[in-house]
C-alpha cells in the first residue's frame, strides 16, 4: 500500500509543556483517518508540524516517499487548520486564484470546486461578507483546488450551526467516496465515527491507539437483555463461559462478551434454560464508549 505520511517519534515541547510526545504513525492511501483527542491533546500541533507551520522539537516526518521537500510535498496536499484564513478584501474567486498561484495549479478548476461546496453563486462576494459556515466551505474548496492526494481537516465543523455541520459532513463524505485520503482531526466522536475507517487516538500528546476503527476495542460487543425472572437471568449469564461480566441497570441486564456469540445462540440457550426474553439487543461499543474506556484506563 502507498504511504502518504509517516511520523517518526515526533515531539513538540512548549517550554515545560509536552504538547506532542514521541508520536509515530503512518497514513496509507485511500483510507479516511480520524485523529481523536480531547481539547489540548496535541492534535493541531501535530498537524501544524507536518504542515510546516510549527517547528518540531525532535523526531521527523516525511511526506510520500520522502524524496521531496516539505513545501513541495504540500502542493499535493489540501489542508485547512482550525479556522479559515483568507484575505478579507478579496472575493472568493480571487482568493482561490491566489491559492492556485501558490500551489502552481491551473485556475480553471475554481468554478468546479466552488460548485462542490455550493458557493458558486457567491464567487464574486468579498470573503469578509461570508458567514462562518461559508468561510469553512470556501476553505474546503481551496484545499481541493489541486485535487490533493490527501485532504487534512482540522475541526472542520467547529463553531458551526447544525445545518452547517450537516453540510460539511456531506461534503466530506462525498469527497471520501471519491477515493481521496482524508485526515480528520476532531474531538467530536460521532463525527469521526460517521466518516472514518481508521483512528489515531491521542491524549496529552501521547498516542493511545492507531488502527482500524473496528479493531479499536478487541471486545465482541455486549447484550442488553430483559426478562421476567431478572435474578435468574443474571445467575445463568454469570455461569456462561462466553461472558466476562454482567451488570444490571435500569431494569436492563447488560452482559459483556469475551468470545463471539450470536444472538440466535444465546436466545436458544436461554430459552432452553426456561428464560423467555422480552428485550434483546446485541451491540458493539460506540466510539465514544470505547474512547472513554481507553482514556479512562490511563487515569
Amino acid at each position, binding site marked *: 500500500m502507498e504511504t502518504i505520511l509517516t511520523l517518526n517519534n515526533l515531539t513538540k515541547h512548549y517550554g515545560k509543556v509536552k504538547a506532542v510526545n514521541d508520536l509515530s504513525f503512518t497514513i496509507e492511501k485511500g483510507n479516511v483517518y480520524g485523529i481523536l483527542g480531547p481539547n489540548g491533546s496535541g492534535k493541531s500541533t501535530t498537524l501544524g508540524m507536518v504542515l510546516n507551520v510549527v517547528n518540531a522539537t525532535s523526531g521527523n516526518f516525511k511526506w510520500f516517499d520522502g524524496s521531496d521537500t516539505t513545501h513541495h510535498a504540500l502542493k499535493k496536499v489540501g489542508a485547512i487548520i482550525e479556522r479559515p484564513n483568507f484575505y478579507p478584501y478579496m472575493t472568493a474567486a480571487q482568493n482561490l*486564484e491566489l491559492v492556485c498561484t*501558490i500551489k*502552481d495549479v491551473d485556475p480553471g478548476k475554481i468554478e468546479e470546486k466552488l460548485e462542490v461546496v455550493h458557493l458558486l453563486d457567491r464567487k464574486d462576494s468579498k470573503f469578509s461578507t461570508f458567514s462562518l459556515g461559508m468561510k469553512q466551505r470556501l476553505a474546503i474548496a481551496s484545499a481541493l483546488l489541486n485535487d490533493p492526494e490527501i485532504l487534512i481537516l482540522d475541526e472542520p465543523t467547529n463553531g458551526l450551526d447544525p445545518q452547517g455541520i450537516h453540510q460539511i459532513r456531506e461534503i466530506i463524505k462525498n469527497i471520501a467516496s471519491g477515493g481521496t485520503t482524508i485526515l480528520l482531526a476532531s474531538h467530536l466522536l460521532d463525527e469521526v465515527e460517521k466518516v472514518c475507517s481508521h483512528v489515531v487516538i491521542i491524549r496529552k500528546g501521547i498516542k493511545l491507539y492507531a488502527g482500524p476503527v473496528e479493531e479499536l476495542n478487541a471486545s465482541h460487543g455486549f447484550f442488553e437483555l430483559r426478562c421476567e425472572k431478572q435474578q435468574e437471568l443474571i445467575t445463568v449469564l454469570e455461569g456462561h463461559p462466553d461472558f466476562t461480566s454482567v451488570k444490571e441497570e435500569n431494569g436492563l441486564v447488560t452482559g459483556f462478551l469475551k468470545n463471539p456469540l450470536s444472538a440466535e445462540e444465546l436466545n436458544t440457550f436461554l430459552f432452553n434454560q426456561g428464560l423467555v426474553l422480552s428485550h434483546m439487543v446485541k451491540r458493539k461499543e460506540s466510539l465514544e464508549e470505547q474512547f472513554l474506556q481507553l482514556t479512562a484506563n490511563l487515569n
Partner: protein
Amino acid sequence: MLRLLTIEFYKLKHSRSSKVLSIAYFVILSFIALIASIEFNLGDFQIRIADQGIFNFPFIWHFNTWVAATLKFFLAIVIVSMISNEYSNRTLKQNLIDGLSKKEFMLSKFYTVVAFALLSTLFIFIMTLILGYSFSDYTEFSIVTREMEFLLAYFFKLVGFFSFCLFLGVLVKRSAFALGFLFVWWIFENITYGILRWKGSAETADAIVQFFPLEAMKNLINLPFQRLNFIETAANQLQADIAIDYAVHWYEVAIVSVWIFLFIYGAYALLKKRDL
C-alpha cells in the same frame, strides 16, 4: 522569482488601501515639479526657487532624489501593513500550508520591495530628465549624465529603508506598532548622536552614528540646500565655512547593503524560528 512577485502583487492589487497609498505616493512625487513655481518674498528680495539653479544639471539629480526620498514614508506604510496583514488575517499560516516555503514568503516580500524601489527610481529618473531639460541652464550630455550616482544612492536608500520596515513588520507583527517602533528608533539614533557629541566630539559621533541604519541611509543623499546659489552666496558673505561632503561614497552604499542583508536575513530567521 516571477511567480513570487506575481503572488505578492496579486495580494497588493486587490487591497484598496495599498493601492490608494501607492498611487498617492507617485502622484505626490510628480508634485516635485510644482517647486518650480514657489516664490519667497524676503523684504526687498524676491527669490524664485526655480531661478536658484535647483533644476540645473547635474544638481537636479541630487535635489530630486533627496526630495523624493523624504516621501518614502507613504510606501513604508504599505510595506509594513503588507507583513502585518499576513499575521492578522493569519494568511501567512495558510500560505505556508498551501505550499509556500518561509524562504519563498520572505523573498516574495523582498522582491516586491526591490520592485517598488526600482519603479520609484525609474519614475524619478524620467521626471528629472523632463524637469531638467525644461529648466536647466546646461543641457549638454556630459553635464546631464554627471552625478547620476544619486539615482543609485536613491535606489539603495529606498531598498534599505523598506527592508527595515519589512524586518520591523515581522518583528512586531502589527503595523501601527512597527511604525511606532521605527519612530522610536529614529529618536534613539538622534539621542545617541547627541550624547556622543556631548561626551566626545562631533567627529567621533559622526564616525559611530554613520553605521546606524537610518543615519547610514540618510548619508547616502545629504541635505542639498547648502548647494543652492543664494545660500552659498550668503555663506560667503558671512564667511561661514559650509564645506560639506555631498558625494555618494562607496562605503555609504556598502554600509546600507550590509543593513539590507541583515534586515532581510533577520526577518527570515525570525520567521523560521517562530511557530505560527
